[in-house]
C-alpha cells in the first residue's frame, strides 16, 4: 500500500515538474491542486478494493497490449484440419491434457489460452473506445442542454428520451445488423484504414469482413451509450449554473464555451468519471453479449462472447472448460473496472478527502 502511494505520488510530481518546465511558476500557482491530488492518491492507496481493481485493470491493459504479440498459436489455424489424430477425439479437456495446452482446446484444436490473448485485445479496445467516444458526446450535449435551456434543451432532451425509450441491446442489435455491409465496403477500398483497424484489434488484414462486424458493434454501442451521460450531466449543470462563481465568470466577459469547459465541466466531472469506470465494465459485457447473439465477428476471430456462444452448442459434454475459462476472463476484466469505480466513488468525493486531511492534521499535532 505504501508502495502504491509513493509510486503514484512520484507520478504526480513528475507531471508537475514537466508543467513547471513548460511554464515557470506552475507548481506555486497550482500547489493546492497538487495537494488535492496527493490526498486522492493517499485515499486510493488506503482502499484495498481500489488497489486490487487497479492492479487487475493494469494487468488487463498489459495483456491487451502485448497479448496478440505473445500468443503462441495463431487463431486462424485449425489444427484439427491438419492433424488426423485430433479429429476423432473430443477437444482436449483440462485434466486429460496435462501440461500443454494448459486449459485445453476448443473444438478446432486451438489452445484457448492463446485465443484468449487475442480476445483480451478485442474486448479492451471495444470497451475503452465506446466509453471514450460515447461519454464525451453525452457530456457535451448535456452541458449545452443544461446551460442553454429553452428550446435547445427541449430538443436535446427529447432526442435523448427517444434513445432511452428503447432498450440499448435492441437498438444496438438493429444497428449492428445494418452497418457491417456498409463498413465492409469502405474497408475493402481503403487499405490504410484496413491496416489501422486490423492493427488496433490485433487481427489479420484478410479478416476485414469480421473487422467490419467489430466496427459496427463499436458504432452501435457508441450510439446507445451517450444518452445516459447527457441526462446526468444536464442535471448537474442545472444546479451548478445558478452558483455565484458562474455569475462572476459571465460578468468578467468569458465566452460561453470557456465557461462551459473551464468552470462548469470540472464541477460536474467526478460523478461522470465514476460512471465511466463502471461503464467500461458494462461495455465489455455488452460487446460480449452482442457477439454472443451472433452479431459480432464470426470465425476465426476469437472474440470472447462469440467463442463462448459457439462452445455453448456443445455444452456441457465437450466445452465446460471453454465456457468456464473464458467466462472467468470476462468476469475478471469487468470486475477490475467495477472495483476501481467503487473506490473512485469514495476518492472523488470531496467529503472523504476533507476527512482524511482532518485526520492527518490531528496525527501531526500528536
Amino acid at each position, binding site marked *: 500500500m505504501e508502495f502504491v502511494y509513493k509510486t503514484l505520488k512520484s507520478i504526480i510530481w513528475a507531471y508537475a515538474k514537466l508543467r513547471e518546465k513548460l511554464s515557470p511558476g506552475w507548481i506555486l500557482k497550482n500547489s493546492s491542486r497538487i495537494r488535492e491530488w496527493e490526498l486522492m492518491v493517499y485515499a486510493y492507496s488506503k482502499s484495498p478494493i481500489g488497489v486490487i481493481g487497479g492492479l487487475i485493470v493494469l494487468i488487463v491493459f498489459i495483456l491487451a497490449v502485448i497479448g496478440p504479440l505473445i500468443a503462441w498459436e495463431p487463431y486462424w489455424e485449425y489444427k484439427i484440419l491438419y492433424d488426423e489424430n485430433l479429429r476423432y477425439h473430443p477437444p482436449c479437456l483440462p485434466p486429460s491434457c496435462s501440461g500443454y495446452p494448459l486449459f485445453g482446446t476448443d473444438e478446432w484444436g486451438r489452445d484457448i489460452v492463446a485465443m484468449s490473448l487475442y480476445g483480451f485485445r478485442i474486448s479492451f479496445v471495444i470497451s475503452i473506445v465506446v466509453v471514450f467516444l460515447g461519454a464525451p458526446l453525452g457530456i457535451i450535449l448535456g452541458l449545452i442542454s443544461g446551460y442553454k435551456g429553452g428550446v435547445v434543451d427541449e430538443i436535446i432532451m427529447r432526442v435523448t428520451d*427517444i434513445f432511452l425509450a428503447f432498450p440499448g441491446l435492441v437498438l444496438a442489435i*438493429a444497428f449492428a445488423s*445494418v452497418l457491417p455491409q456498409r463498413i465492409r465496403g469502405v474497408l475493402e477500398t481503403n487499405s490504410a484504414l484496413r491496416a489501422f483497424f486490423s492493427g488496433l484489434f490485433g487481427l489479420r488484414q484478410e479478416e476485414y469482413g469480421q473487422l467490419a462486424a467489430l466496427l459496427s458493434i463499436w458504432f452501435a454501442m457508441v450510439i446507445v451509450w451517450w444518452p445516459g451521460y447527457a441526462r446526468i450531466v444536464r442535471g448537474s449543470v442545472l444546479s451548478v449554473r445558478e452558483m455565484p462563481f458562474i455569475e462572476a465568470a459571465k460578468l468578467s466577459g468569458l465566452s460561453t464555451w470557456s465557461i462551459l469547459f473551464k468552470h462548469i465541466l470540472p464541477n460536474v466531472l467526478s460523478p461522470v468519471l465514476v460512471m465511466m469506470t463502471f461503464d467500461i465494465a458494462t461495455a465489455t459485457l455488452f460487446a460480449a*453479449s452482442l457477439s*454472443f*447473439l451472433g452479431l459480432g465477428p464470426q470465425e476465426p476471430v476469437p472474440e470472447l462472447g462469440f467463442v463462448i456462444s459457439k462452445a455453448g452448442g456443445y455444452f*456441457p459434454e465437450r466445452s465446460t472448460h471453454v465456457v468456464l475459462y*473464458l*467466462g472467468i476472463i470476462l468476469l475478471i476484466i469487468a470486475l477490475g473496472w467495477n472495483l476501481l469505480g467503487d473506490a473512485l466513488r469514495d476518492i472523488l468525493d470531496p467529503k472523504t478527502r476533507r476527512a482524511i486531511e482532518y485526520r492527518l492534521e490531528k496525527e501531526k499535532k500528536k
Partner: protein
Amino acid sequence: MEGVNVGLASFIARRIITFIPTLIGVLLITYLIAYAIPADPVRAWVGEKLMNPETLEQIKAKYKFNAPWYEQFIFLIQQLLTGQLEDPVRHKNVFTELTSRFAVTFELAIVGFLFLVLIGLPLGIIAAVKKDSPVDFAVRVMALVGSSLPAFVLYYFLILAFFNYIQTTYLAGIPMPSSACTTTLSSLPQTIPVLGNIVSAIGSIPMFGAMMCGEWSIVLDTFKRLYLPGLALGLLNGGFIARIVRNSLLDALSTEYISYAKARGLRKLSVWRHALKNAMVPVVTVLGLNFGGLLSGAIIAETVFNIPGLGRYMYDAIMRLNFPVIIACTFLIAVIYIVVNLVVDILYAVIDPRIRY
C-alpha cells in the same frame, strides 16, 4: 382530496402528451434503420428458392415497397394503429403473435422480479442492520460480482447444475391452461361487459389464466419451467438492489426524525418501520425500472433458456428484416417504457405523501 386527483390526472395527461413525439421519433428511427439495410427485405421474407416474380410483385405492392419511404412509413403506422399489421413471414396478424410472446415475457418478468425482491430486499435490510459485518461485505461482493458476471456464463452453469445434474426443470415449451379454460375466459367479455374484458385480458397470460381456472398443476409447471431464468436474473441484479436498499436505509436511519423517534422511546421495530418506509423511494425507482427492463424482453436469457418471448421475437424479426414486426415490437417496448416510468412516478406519491402532482 379532490385537488390531489385532478393534479394526478393532469400530470398523467401531460406525460402522455409529451410522450407522443418521443414515440413517433422512436418509430421513425427504427424504420429508417431498417430502411437503410442495403438488402431486399422481400427476398429475406420469402426465401431465395421460393422466389416467384409474380408473388414478389404482389408482396411489394402490398407493403408499398415501390413508393417513397415516408409513404411506406405512414402506411405501416396506419396499419399499426388500426391493428391490421400483418407478419409477412408467418402470414398472420402481428398482434396475435405479439400477444402470446408478450404473455410469456410477462410471466418470466414476474418470476424474475419475485426472485429479485426476495433476494434483494432481505439482504439489503440485513446488511444495513449489521453494517460492516461479514453479511454486509458479502452483499457488497455479490453486487460487484453480479454486475461483472457475463449473464450467459451464469445461465450455462445454472443449466448444468439444475437441468443436467439435479433435473428439476425443463427447457422446452411453455405450459398453457387447458383449451376449455381459455375458451371460457375469452368468452367472458360477451357475458360481463367491462369487468369481463379486464379478466379476460389478465387471463390471456397463461399463468394467470390457469390460476383463474384453478388448474394449479399448470401454474406449478410454469414455475418449474421459469424459475431457473428467474433465479438467474435475481442473482445477477439482487446484489445491486440489496446495496441500494442498504444505502438508502442507512441514510434514512441517520436523519433527525429517527433520532426523535428513538428519543421518544419507541420500540426498535417501529423505529425501523419508520426508516424503511422513507428509504423506499429510491428502491421503488430501481425496482420499477428493472421490471420495465424485464418486460422489454431478456434477449440473452430467452436465447439460452429457449423461451419464446418478446426479446427473441424481436431479435428474429431484425435478423429477417421483418419490418412490420420490428415496428410493432418497438412500439410495444416504447409504450412499456412510458407506462413503467409513469407507474414509478405515481408510486412515489403513494409512498411519500409529501410528493404531489
